[in-house]
C-alpha cells in the first residue's frame, strides 16, 4: 500500500534572478568593501583599500555591527545607494 507523507520543508521555490554582470571596467566606479564583523576583517580590508586606492579606484567602506547577526537594513540600503561594486567575503 502506498504511504502518504507530509512535506516538512518550507515548500518555497527559489526565485531565479539573472545575475548582474560585472562591469567591464572599474574606472569611475565606487568599490564598497563590506566588513562582515569577523575579528581582524578591518585589518584585512585596510590593506585591500590601500591596494585599490593605489590603482586609482574610489573605495567606500561599510560594516555589520556584529558577525553574529545579519546586516541591518540601513547598512544594506547605504551599500545599494553608494556602491557600484561590493566586495564581501567570509573570513576565518
Amino acid at each position, binding site marked *: *500500500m*502506498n*504511504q*502518504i*507523507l*507530509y*512535506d*516538512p*520543508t*518550507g*515548500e*518555497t521555490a527559489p526565485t531565479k534572478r539573472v545575475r548582474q554582470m560585472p562591469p567591464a571596467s572599474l574606472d569611475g566606479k565606487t568599490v564598497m568593501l563590506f566588513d562582515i*564583523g569577523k*575579528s581582524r576583517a578591518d585589518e584585512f580590508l585596510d590593506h585591500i583599500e590601500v591596494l585599490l586606492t593605489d590603482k586609482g579606484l574610489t573605495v567606500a567602506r561599510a560594516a555589520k*555591527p*556584529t*558577525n*553574529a*547577526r*545579519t546586516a541591518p537594513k540601513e547598512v544594506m540600503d547605504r551599500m545599494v545607494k553608494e556602491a557600484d561594486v561590493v566586495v564581501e567575503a*567570509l573570513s*576565518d
Partner: protein
Amino acid sequence: MPFSDGLHLVVKKDCPTCTLIEPVIRDMAAIGESLYVYIQDDLSFLGDLPVTSDDRSLEQSFHLDIETVPTIIRMEDGIEIERVVGWSQEDWQTFTGIEDIGKTLPPFQPGCGALNVSPGAEEVLQAKFGQVPMKSRTIEVSGYDDEIEQMFDRGWSDGLPVVPPTPERVLRMLAGTKRDPQEIVGRIPPNLTECTIEKVAINAVMAGCKPEYMPVVLASIDAALDPLFTLHGLLCTTCFSGPIIIVNGPIAKKIGMNWGINALGQGNRANSTIGRALQLIVRNVGGGIPGEIDRATLGNPGKIGFCFAEDETDPTWQPLSEDRGFEKGSNTVTLFPGDGVHGFADNRSRTPEELTNSFAMGLQGCIHPKLAEWVFAVLVLSPEHYATYKDAGWTRKKITDEIVKAGIKPGKDLIRGAHGVGEGIDPSRADEMVPKFYEDGLMIVRAGGPAGLFSGFLTSWTGAQKKGACAPITREIKI
C-alpha cells in the same frame, strides 16, 4: 456524510452487551422500521440480517461519532435527533416506542468501548475519512519503496533515520497543542521561511517526539527566534555550536525528561528528540544545511539535538528559571548557543573555596585559555560537586559570583604572545585584570547522577565576543 432517515445501530460481537441484546435487534429488524445495523468486528454476529452492514473499516462508526457500543441513533431529515448508549430497557423502550422491548433481559447493562475510539484509531480514521487541518504538500511513497530511504533522498534527515510524517502521526502531534495548525510561529533563518504549527508538528514527528513534547518544542522555537539569540549566525558559523535547550519546571518530570544519570547523554526520548525537532526545523523549514550555509569547521554531535532538564529536586537549589526572573514552579526553556560537553573532574577539593578556584581554572579553557570576554558558558554542576557548596551554605548567586571572581586574570598572562602562544587578548590590556566572562556570562545548571565528582562545561559560540551581541534566551512553556 449523509445518513438515511431511520435507526442506526452500531455493535460489535466482542461486546457482552451487544450479544445480550441480540434478540432485541432481531425483533426490531422484523418489525420493519428502517433499521441499519453496523458491525464493527465479526460478521458472524447478526450478519444474516438484511439490515446489517460490514463496518470493519469503521467508516460509518467514525461518521456517526460512536464512542460506545451498542449505540442507537435516530436520524430525521439527515440530522441526528436522539441517541441511546449501552442497554437500558427503559431508555430503549422510550426510544423505540416498543412496549415490551427486551423485557426478559436485565434492566440495565453498560456498553463497551467502540473500536473506532481504540487508542490510536481516532487519528487514523480522521486521516482516512475525515477533514484534516493540514495544508502541507503530500508525497505519495510507493508501497515498494522504503519511506525511510525516500526521506534520506529528499534531504529531510539530519543523517539519522527520521520517523515518516504520515497524516495520522501529524494529527496526533497536533493534539499536543491547542494552537491553530496554520498559526505562524515565526520566520526560520536562514531562508526566513514562515513556519506554521503544522510544520513544527511534521518535524517533531520526524524527530521522534511525543505529542506532549510539543509545548516544549514550540517554546524552544519562540526562544530561538528572539533576535538576541542570533539563530542565523549560530546556524551558519564556523564554530562548533548549536542551540542547547535547558528545561525547567514540572513539565520536565511530566514528560519524562532526564536530569540525572547521563543527563547530557543518550537514552531518554524527550531529551533526545526535543532538541532534534528544533534542529530539523532549522534544516527543513529554514534551509540551514551543513556544508551549505552551515559552515561549521567541526561542529559537534550535539547539533543533532541537545536538550536536558535541570535537577530541581533539591529545595536548597534555586532553579535556573527563577534566577532568570520566572516565578517558582514555572515551566521554561532556556536556549543556550553552545557546543559539546567539556568534561571537568575534581576529586580532591573539599572546600567551596578550593572547588571554586578549580572551576575557574577549568573554565579558563573555554574556547582558549588566553581568550577572555569571548564566550559565555554553562557550568553543569553535578550533585557531588554541589554537595561541597551546599554543606557550606553557598547559594547559586554566591557560587556564580565567586567562580567569576576567581577567573579574573592579569592581562599580561593573556595577551597575544604571552607564554609563547600567539593567541590571546589585545596587548593594550596587559596591565588590566581581565575577567574570563562578561557580566552574566556564566550560567549554572544542576544536573547529573548521584555519584561522580564530575561536572561539565558548555561553551557558547564566539558570536558572544562583542558585548551584548547575543545572549541565552528563556521563554515560558505555554501548555
